[in-house]
């Protein structure tokens, strides 16, 4: 089910990402004050936008899980948050590099977007330990969903609070992400953003397809064994697919 269209999607992702990188290096002009290093913007900002949207999407999927109790929604939410966390590491690293290059420090506290992102990242970093330390799979899914909903609501509020705290000393316009970019930079940025969105969706689908296949394989094995041997979850994993209650759902 999740494997459908994966080849076309992977190809599209490769093409768009390659195009985005080509545009970044050969088409977009160098920034007037920051020079070449400003080009990290085309990776850093799309990655941050996609990661934040992924966190919020994880929250929305968690709402769907709590409403329907379908295990697939918990799995979707888990994969979205898990991928966003990985992107989040990238955001913090590229942000630090950019800060070092343009302000001379690896970390600056007067950049509200980056600071908000760090707080959100620290919060979501608890998602895996929380899941991981609950044994009952059904409860694990439920608690993780509750966390994802609360944290999803926290994302916008945190941005508001941090931005206001900075605005006190450093007035700035809302919407720092390309509000007044010149045309060619804006175009490059949009292509890079589209590439990052496609990358996220593709990776999400790959992981979902893999988890779904593992789950079905396990169910089939269990059926072959005549339901006698208890099927053990392989290794210590926080991933929701590896549960004893996994049934071949009828998607």
């Amino acid at each position: 089910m999740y494997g459908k269209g994966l080849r076309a999607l992977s190809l599209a992702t490769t093409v768009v990402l390659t195009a985005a990188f080509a545009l970044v290096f050969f088409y977009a002009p160098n920034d007037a004050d920051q020079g070449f290093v400003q080009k990290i913007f085309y990776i850093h900002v799309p990655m941050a936008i996609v990661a934040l949207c992924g966190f919020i999407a994880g929250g929305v999927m968690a709402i769907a899980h709590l409403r329907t109790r379908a295990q697939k929604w918990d799995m979707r939410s888990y994969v979205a948050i898990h991928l966003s966390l990985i992107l989040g590491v990238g955001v913090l690293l590229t942000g630090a590099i950019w800060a070092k290059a343009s302000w001379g420090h690896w970390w600056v506290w007067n950049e509200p977007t980056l600071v908000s992102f760090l707080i959100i990242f620290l919060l979501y970093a608890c998602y895996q330990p929380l899941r991981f330390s609950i044994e009952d799979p059904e409860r694990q899914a439920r608690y993780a969903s509750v966390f994802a909903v609360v944290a999803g609501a926290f994302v916008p509020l945190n941005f508001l609070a941090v931005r206001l705290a900075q605005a006190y000393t450093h007035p700035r316009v809302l919407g720092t992400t390309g509000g007044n970019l010149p045309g060619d930079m804006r175009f490059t940025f949009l292509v890079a953003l589209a590439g990052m969105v496609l990358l996220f969706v593709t990776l999400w689908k790959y992981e979902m397809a893999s988890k779904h296949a593992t789950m079905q394989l396990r169910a089939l094995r269990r059926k072959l064994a005549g339901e006698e041997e208890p099927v053990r979850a392989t290794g210590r994993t926080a991933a929701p697919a590896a549960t004893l209650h996994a049934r071949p759902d009828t998607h």
Partner: protein
Amino acid sequence: MRRTAAAVVRKDLLLELRTKETVPAMALFAVTTFVVFHFGLNRGSVAGDLAAGVFWVTLLFAAMLGINRLFVAEREQGGFDAFLLAPTDRTALLAAKAAALFVFLSVLELIAVPAFALLLLDPSPWPALPGLIGLLALANVGIAVIGTLASALAIQTRARDLIAPLLALPLLIPVVIAAAKATTPLLLAGGPGDVAARWPLILGLYDVVFALTAYAVFDFLLED
């Protein structure tokens, strides 16, 4: 629901009055932290933003002790099962626990504020007091709601003492931002200045948003 919540609050307060397990520990922790700050900062007195920061960080960490213990009796002595067996609205437990935590925090502050004024604060605390009480009330609501939620999330995990602060601290950063920013002008060395209206508003918004979120999701933490 109101009667159930009132009964649970009464039970919690009675339990605390008899065992004195949580609030004295929180108060002692807060006073000790002030002493630690005295040596850590190497200062006899603080004012302005430093005072606001020391004060709120201490309160927040003391609150963590209460948050960690909030559901321990329910978990260890079957209170959850009893509550689920009773034909009542589950949200009552959220309201009751948040109210109990609010009371614990208020009692803690009754001790921590005078201790802070005596031990560390440079300007006189009296002119700042009305504003400070308002801010403390607003912040307590937020800490109580988030604390209840984090505690309920963490109580069923294997590492609950670790998970609850890890969850609650990032969630409470907006409270710290708003409360510390609002308290800074109150504690200036030359007497209190004006508090920008946006900080109490942020605290109020935070309280409303998370009270509603907690109300929406708390039921799911109490099944089975």
